[in-house]
């Protein structure tokens, strides 16, 4: 079957062991303000407009069937809500400067497996494999399952990075074909979680308990977001939750604004412009906290 992916990266070395291929699947049930892949949130294809490449030749304006692109004062203006990343991709073809592109493309499970399999010699020599990230890969559960099964047939090490928001059955299905979970825990307090991600936290913790009880290999990923997830209470809650579920490995992901431009490019609002990135010493202090509690803690 077909799935929608955003991107495939090879020689990825930060998301699981060894040299890996990293597949970003599109679509996510959460809406975290700090998301660095905002274009992965919506399930369908989205138009991307990189303004600094634009030479304002207005070719896209002429070719737009929906009228969502207009010209004025020598500028190109886009109304992203009215653009449907139309199947004709008129403005993309019209643009000679790569200023317009589409984020997200369909791919069949067979084709994706074939691409992943190309780097098998690199996986073998490095202890690497494939990592599915997103977006939330479990949003495309059936597609993900097919690809995971295909990879296991080829004896490829598989990792799934998940926010944990999924129906239990999907999770149950992929368990036998997943070697490692990179499992995001953001906020433990239910009200705060709902407020900052748009979804309740209970199912996420429930799913985590479930895969832990099935002896899955799990590394917790904890995004450190100034003033949001890094409060003393939340950090303590994260540690306690891990203790209860008997999980030992945690990876801290300090806030960065690398995805900032992508919000503009996709016509999305960025809410964290006031947030300042950490000093390295601050991040070290968080790591020390977890290490002193006996956790195996790394910084991404």
């Amino acid at each position, binding site marked *: 079957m077909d799935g929608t992916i955003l991107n495939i990266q090879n020689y990825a*070395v930060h998301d699981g062991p*060894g040299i890996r291929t990293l597949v970003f699947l599109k679509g996510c049930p959460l809406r975290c303000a700090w998301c660095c892949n905002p274009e992965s949130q919506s399930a369908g294809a989205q138009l991307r407009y990189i303004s600094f490449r634009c030479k304002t030749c207005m070719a896209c304006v002429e070719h737009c069937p929906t009228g969502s692109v207009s010209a004025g004062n020598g500028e190109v203006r886009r109304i992203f809500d009215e653009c449907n990343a139309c199947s004709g991709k008129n403005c993309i073809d019209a643009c*000679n400067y790569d200023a317009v592109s589409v984020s997200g493309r369909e791919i069949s499970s067979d084709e994706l497996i074939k691409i992943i399999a190309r780097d098998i010699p690199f996986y073998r*020599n*490095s*202890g690497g494999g494939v990592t599915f990230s997103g977006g939330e890969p479990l949003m495309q559960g059936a597609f993900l399952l097919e690809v995971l099964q295909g990879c296991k047939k080829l004896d490829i090490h598989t990792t799934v990075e998940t926010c944990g928001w999924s129906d239990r059955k999907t999770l149950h299905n992929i368990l036998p074909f997943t070697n490692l979970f990179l499992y995001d825990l953001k906020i433990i307090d239910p009200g705060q979680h709902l407020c900052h991600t748009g979804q309740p936290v209970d199912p996420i913790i429930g799913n985590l308990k479930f895969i832990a009880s099935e002896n899955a290999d799990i590394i917790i990923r904890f995004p450190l977001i100034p003033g949001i997830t890094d409060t003393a209470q939340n950090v303590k809650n994260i540690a306690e939750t891990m203790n209860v579920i008997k999980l030992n490995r945690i990876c801290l992901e300090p806030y*960065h604004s*690398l995805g900032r431009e992508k919000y503009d490019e996709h016509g999305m609002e960025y809410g964290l412009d006031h947030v300042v*990135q950490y000093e390295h010493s601050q991040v070290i202090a968080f790591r020390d906290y977890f290490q002193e509690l006996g956790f195996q803690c790394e910084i991404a």
Partner: protein
Amino acid sequence: MNVHHEPMEGREILGAPSNSRTSFFKGRYLDSPLMVDIEYIKYLTESHRVTDGTEVLERRAADHAYALSRLTPVIHDHDTLAGNKTRFIRGAIPYANYAAEPFLREMRKEEQDAQSQHMEQGKGGGIRKALLEAEQNGLRLISGKFLISKDEYEQFKEICTYWEDKCFMAQGNLLWKNHFRNASFIEDGWKIGLYTAPHEPCPEGRLILDFETALASGFNQVIRETEEKIRAFQPEDITEGAKINFWKAAITVLKGAIVFAENYAAEAEHLAESESDPARKAELMRMAEICSRVPMEPPRNFREAVQSFWFTYLLGHLEGSHLGYSPGKLDQLLYPYYKNDPNLTRSEAISLFEELFVKMTQIEYIASMSWQGLGHGNLYQNLILGGVDEKGERADNEVSMAILQAQINMQMTQPTLSVWWDEKLDSEFLLKASECVKTGVGYPAFFNQPTYVQHELKTSGLPLATIRKHSAIGGCTEPTLQGMAYGIVQAGFVNHGKIIDLVLNEGVDPVTGIRMAKPRKPGTFDEVRSYYLEIMQAAVRNWQQYWNYVMIAHRNTVPLVFCSVFVNNCLERGKCMDDGGALLNQSITTLSSGMVNVANSLAVIRKLCFDDKVCSIDELFKAVRENWQGHEGLRKKALAVPHWGNDDDYVDDIFLDLFDEYCDWVSGQNNYLGKPYDPSMLAISTPVPFGKVCNAFPDGRLKGEPLADGVTSPFPGTDVCGPTAVIRSSMKVDHTRIRGGLLNLKFHPSALKGVSGSKNMLALIKTYFEKPGFHVQFNVVDSRMLLDAQVHPENYRDLVVRVAGFSAYWVEMSKSLQDQVIWRTEHSL
């Protein structure tokens, strides 16, 4: 750019000299201007004036020996190793006996050779220092960056005038310009940038001597054995008379070499006498003792072995105008002395290597502006570690580790450090090597020994054990057999990019209007391909035949006698290298660069004009001729066609086809030693000047942009599938077919961070080499750091980056080369 918020990532491994002495050496080097030293050429000329009438080899030996025994033995403050190529910290010898013409032309304010206008030299660091001092002290400059006193300048002018009609280049010109029927093709080729400039100013190199024998026997023993050969000789053929000439020449040159060492012993003793510091006095006394023993007699300990190696190495270096003259397998050479020296500490060995590396970096070369620009001042002294021994067992040892540590500490641009990769190598050694890479210095490069062994088995027919034991890299990326092979003395590079220009313009160079090939208007893909092959074949064949003429003059003017003594089996056969004395004579290569652009261009032509019928071939060629201006839409489609480096068979198959055609054609011509020319492809910095003279290409490249570099490195910005795809494309090439090859990968420090980052890098190398690839090297730098270094060079005086087959100080690189390094796709996450 969408990454400007990210903090700049520095180099993970920084390193510092291990002690105050070597720190002083590095500082002294960095503070010294570039000087030209005419002492050697002055004495050589003095001798040459009176040796007229002597047999060629004997004359060459007498001249070299005369100069060796008279050179001023300079021991600089704090030195513990004796011997320098010149009297200065950074000094170059102007070998007017090789080519007086470029110097004379400069001195006569005549126009430089056609290429030099496309070449650009760096302007920072020691070069800047030389320019400043020239202004302040009324010194003169030669070759744009070397200082010389006014008095020596006048002397040098006279020396060059003497050599004007006698030097290798002049004698070669007499031959090929008068007798080679296609001489005009070569001259036109230079005018249009089809070839690199004449190589005669610095032809020697890619040569490694048999230091093992030199050390183990000692020069005295070699002299005795040679004298015995003369006594036992019974001629049975009239041509054998030349044997006596060579043996006599060998003895003469060795005796001169001994005086050279003894002069250092005397100087050390002399300095010791007036030295007030007792510690330094003792050091100088020790130096005097060592220099009066080696290289005449075998070394008795590690320090003597290093000194003996360094003298032997220098003596060969002094003899010729070398680029890529190399130390070879120094860890193998020195290990027995290291192991058996009870008084040696590891830190003393590391300190000695640190001093040695500074000394190697201090050697400069001066040639035509074109070749200086191409080599960017780098001498490509390749030191290779690891690999396997004759039995196929891993050969990395404690000395290999000490050498890596010394380079991590010093980060000098020389030696060009390399590793022979083999799956048997110790993982600790490999991790140390990757630590060195992560200093950002670009060294070591990794070479796949089994691939080269295959190449040599196929072409030389020498025994496996011999090939394994002696395989080394001479120069930047060309493998050869240490102490057994003629140098890789080739004519220079063929510019594949210029051939695209010719194909697109019916055989006429669009820049100069010079016709290079029969007019054709290809109408099909096959016609385009055959037109390209037709011109490539003419370019290669004429280049080889021209060079065979030139090298006749080499035998008659500058045959290497000292070097021949330490290349097997010259002494045994009684023949110098130019007479075929070496065991391996198939080391002469034909070089080219830019084939990736040809493959990409052919893929675009096939796809747009024939498969998809987007445009006609005339429309495409017209757009390209107009540098794509007004044809942006078509250029976008051209760029969307698969390009090399993405593991796409559509274009990769075209590359493989061209590669095979090139290799077959190159080896179809014998070299001047009677063996087939060996195909090779590399780059040094040719992509920049070669690109400058070329129009736009069908692959989307714009006029004047650099070509793709190396053999299998993708064109910058067109490898969109990541580093493993680059390697998968490169894996398809049969690297055993060529002598030398090159793949550059540039990584952001974060991609290789920590031990796990190193292990991933090693896994990448292993995967590539299992296939088997031949060579890979890494630049581990943040491109924003390089951009910052362009703006604030003063903060980056010691920043070394890998350019092609060599590393260079950032501030001494030309702006265009800096841009190219920044431009290369940076693989990061």
